[in-house]
């Protein structure tokens, strides 16, 4: 594991387990397991979160391969349409709540204390609890596949009345989401409290690194909207089992009400998955351009504006439900406004690169891939904002292409970039740069083969969430499926590379690791000691943003 640290002998590692050093496998399997189960160390928990998220990304990826296999050709070849619906539902839930969100929480666990110069998160036991909820939540969610009646098949959006046709999986899905929500909220509270109370004395808010800033804002979004999701799914639960009719028209309820509540959670959720990515990219690009971020403060303001706007645009996910035209106009204008702060961010990244002195190590490649491909996803988002045109795009593959562009080469590329960027700090060894470069180019090519043709499919009229399609859609679906398989295979290169780092096999990393890196995390040794900044550091102003 990444924090096991044979080089730090002054830390009394090994048998001296009531001192600071972590217990290792050499101390026996049971003590080692107890360490990981009971750990309150932010670095340990960061590692656990990241490993968990990669297991989930792998499972979600396998589900997407089932989907793409079925869509390779028209006709039903491999799976029953009902099972297909279970796959699309679980793919989304697993990727969002099990993959992307825990990955960002894991990065925050590792990096936030080290970036602001404190010893750990403010609430370490809560941190442990927040993580260990997740394996249970997702075991329960994935376990629904074994039930008679199968897993949830209503799409991750869980729209009633369709969701009411879910069998025994319904309460399990609801409770799994409750648990995942509790986990997210505890993580978010922990991060807010830590950032606001435990910064090193010389670090004013506006001098914090952008990754910390974006996570502070993300944490507030989480605290604001996860209870909304919990409320919505609880109402589904009581509608199903306790005779309420919140969403049942026959009982005076309103199916569209659910959509409003869901998307009031759902749209900020989109930014929960992308704001930390903005922070990561805003950290990596200045490092490899050897030049300060062009507008640190304006980036902070842009993130805050996006977070605010995310609360007033939810209904653009449901333009076709038949809202009053005044509401449609409002949500169209508000949605278009998001393009402004998002544009500010992209322009800032380009201005940071401009006249820098760039090198292109793997983290930088993924960050640049992020900027280009996320921007393409942003363009299609701007197109989708226009209500009259959205009536055509809505629920078509154009939308699928759009949100996968912002989530895969967006959020996931940023997570990969962050791991390449910081893993020398975590493990003390450099990853294999050649394999990293190969991983980037392989992923960048196939991700476009996978998702770009889906724009064409959507424009040609192919709806999303269908297991079978009219034959005119065959060719692009075939291309897309090939892209999916190749992209998936390429990720094993990444996993191999990371495992080699975790086994300490590679070139030793220096403390600074990257020539242009700035920030407190680079002032400690590589690998970072099990406990860092137990006394607040004196900060060299050059390390501040």
């Amino acid at each position, binding site marked *: 594991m990444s924090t096991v640290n044979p080089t730090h002998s002054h830390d009394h590692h090994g048998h001296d387990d009531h001192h600071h050093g972590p217990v290792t496998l050499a101390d026996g399997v049971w003590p080692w397991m107890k360490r990981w189960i009971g750990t309150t160390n932010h670095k340990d928990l960061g590692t656990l979160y990241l490993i968990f998220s990669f297991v989930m990304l792998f499972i979600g990826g396998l589900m997407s391969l089932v989907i793409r296999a079925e869509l390779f050709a028209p006709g039903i070849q491999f799976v029953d349409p009902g099972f297909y619906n279970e796959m699309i539902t679980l793919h989304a839930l697993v990727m969002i709540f099990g993959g992307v969100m825990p990955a960002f929480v894991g990065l925050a666990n590792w990096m936030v204390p080290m970036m602001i110069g404190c010893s750990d998160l403010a609430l370490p036991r809560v941190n442990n609890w927040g993580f260990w909820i997740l394996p249970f939540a997702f075991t329960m969610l994935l376990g629904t596949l074994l039930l008679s009646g199968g897993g949830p098949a209503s799409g991750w959006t869980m729209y009633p009345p369709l969701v009411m046709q879910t069998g025994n999986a319904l309460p399990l899905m609801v409770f799994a989401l409750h648990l995942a929500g509790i986990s997210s909220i505890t993580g978010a509270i922990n991060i807010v409290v830590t950032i606001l109370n435990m910064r090193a004395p010389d670090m004013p808010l506006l001098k914090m690194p952008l990754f910390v800033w974006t996570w502070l804002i993300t944490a507030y979004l989480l605290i604001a909207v996860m209870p909304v999701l919990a409320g919505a799914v609880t109402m589904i639960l009581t509608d199903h089992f306790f005779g309420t009719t919140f969403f049942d028209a026959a009982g005076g309820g309103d199916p569209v009400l659910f959509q409003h509540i869901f998307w009031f959670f759902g749209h900020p959720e989109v930014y929960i998955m992308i704001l930390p990515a903005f922070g990561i990219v805003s950290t990596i690009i200045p490092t490899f351009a050897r030049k300060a971020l062009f507008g640190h403060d304006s980036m902070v303001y842009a993130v805050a504006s996006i977070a605010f706007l995310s609360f007033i645009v939810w209904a653009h996910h449901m333009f*076709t439900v038949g809202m009053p035209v005044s509401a449609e106009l409002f949500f169209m204008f508000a949605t278009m406004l998001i393009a402004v702060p998002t544009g500010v961010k992209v322009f800032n990244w380009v201005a940071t690169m401009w006249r820098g002195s760039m090198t292109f190590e793997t983290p930088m490649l993924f960050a640049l891939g992020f900027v280009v491909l996320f921007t393409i996803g942003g363009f299609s988002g701007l197109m989708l904002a226009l209500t009259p045109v959205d009536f055509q795009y809505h629920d078509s593959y154009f939308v699928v292409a759009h949100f996968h562009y912002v989530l895969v080469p967006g959020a996931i590329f940023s997570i990969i970039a962050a791991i390449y960027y910081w893993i020398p700090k975590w493990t003390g060894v450099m990853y294999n740069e050649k394999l990293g470069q190969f991983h980037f180019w392989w992923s960048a090519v196939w991700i476009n083969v996978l998702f770009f043709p889906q724009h064409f499919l959507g424009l040609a009229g192919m709806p999303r969430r269908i297991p079978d399609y009219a034959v005119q859609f065959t060719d692009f679906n075939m291309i897309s499926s090939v892209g999916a398989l190749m992209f998936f295979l390429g990720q094993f290169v990444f996993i191999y590379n990371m495992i080699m780092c975790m086994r300490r096999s590679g070139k030793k990393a220096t403390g600074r690791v990257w020539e242009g890196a700035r920030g407190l995390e680079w002032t400690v040794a590589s690998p970072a000691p099990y406990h860092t900044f137990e006394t607040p550091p004196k900060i060299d102003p050059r390390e501040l943003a």
Partner: protein
Amino acid sequence: MNKISILSRSGLVALGALFVSPAYAEWTLNMNEGVTDLTSEVFGLHMLIFWICVVIGIGVFGAMLYSVIVHRKSRGFEASHFHESTVVEIAWTAVPFIILIVVAIPAAGTLLQIEDSSDPDMTIRVTGHQWLWEYDYVDQGVHFFSRLDRDSDKARQQNSGIDPNTVEHYLRNVDKAMVVPVDKKVRLLLSSGDVIHSWWVPDLGGKKDAIPGYINDMWFKANETGTYRGQCAELCGRGHAFMPIVVKVVSQDEYDQWVTDQGGDAGADSQLAQGQPSTDAANAQAQTEADSSPTAGNATEGRTEDGSEVEPDETSETLVGEGEENNQGGSPDDQRDTDAAQASSDRGSPKVEDESVESDAEDGSDSGDGADNAEQQGDSQNDSPAGGDQAADDSAGGEMSKDELMSQGEEVYGNLCAACHQPDGSGMPAAGFPAMKGSAVATGDVSTHISQILNGKGAMPPYKGTLDDKQIAAVVTYERNAFGNETGDVVQPSQVAEQR
């Protein structure tokens, strides 16, 4: 816009060419312009915003690319140290804002037109069901269900062995298309009998959700005759991919003829043309459904719905709790039966079927009340092909021959039961749907079998509200003698009636 669209098409093709080998030149890359004024406007907006994105993209990515090539350390480029510029930040906030306003204005204008469904020339009520569409021409008294055509339906079964490429309009063809006149403002009133669906024919405009408990409206005015295809766009369960929409836009004369053929009143459309509120329209419609009388020898083609009512106690139906009857629908109804009979003989339809029965009386509930999902689902289906090959007087539930029961039962089974229990009766045990073949219910006690269909069990909905005695008798008989269940039992409608 035309110039732009030509330009844009070639641009998209060029863009697409990055991924597309020349052999596939006929691949569709862009949105269709459609056949209404509004779809053209929407297409224009789509291209406008597309080109704005392309221009911004060229600017941003161009600057990035230049920087990546020139400002690199390996060329010995030294980093400058400029950062923070309020002027620049304000500029790149203001300029996009202005661009957005330029786009927002025409978009808002188009949106207002799309949402203005006033003064329609005709109104059709569209109701989504799992998994077919119901069309109800409220002024003309034409009413029918439209579902995936047989060829596609066969080919789409898992391991059917049929190549979808050999099926004409695979998954985009229906047994009975919606027909509308060209150059007329057609208003659709959308609702659902079970879960949320979404009605989408790209060439005629955007989509609109069909939601239980809601009546949404949308409209289109097609400029060209032709056949336009689409499908449900909102996830609605297992059969979501299999509820296509086909709209035939024809000349007014052909449309009038079609209405007459359907037993409707072609002249009636003027009555509602003045934009009556939808509830009135719905009332009118309810009336059309309400009071037909049994008509011997009434035969209609395929799955038309406009035929007779059989069982008096099931015929009257009011809509959405509105008790009073509106007389507008009355006259078409009187004509209907005779017209229908005439129509079928006129066209010499190859497959003569009797009506299925009470179902059209039920559909009244679909527009507003959202209740009885299961019944809606059932009713919509049973009325389609329900059955046997005799047309005359089997309607009242007299003795039926085993052949009649089997053939009608097969139809009912195919429409209602096969989705879960599978066409070959093998069920989906993994999903909790038991096999019919050799099942304890289908080979055991007859009254248990009938009762389960009447009252439902677990995930299986009750069918007593949606199937009549004859249909239940038929499907029970079928299930007891098909799939190798050689019980030899013949169940008569009277047995079902006793158990109700």
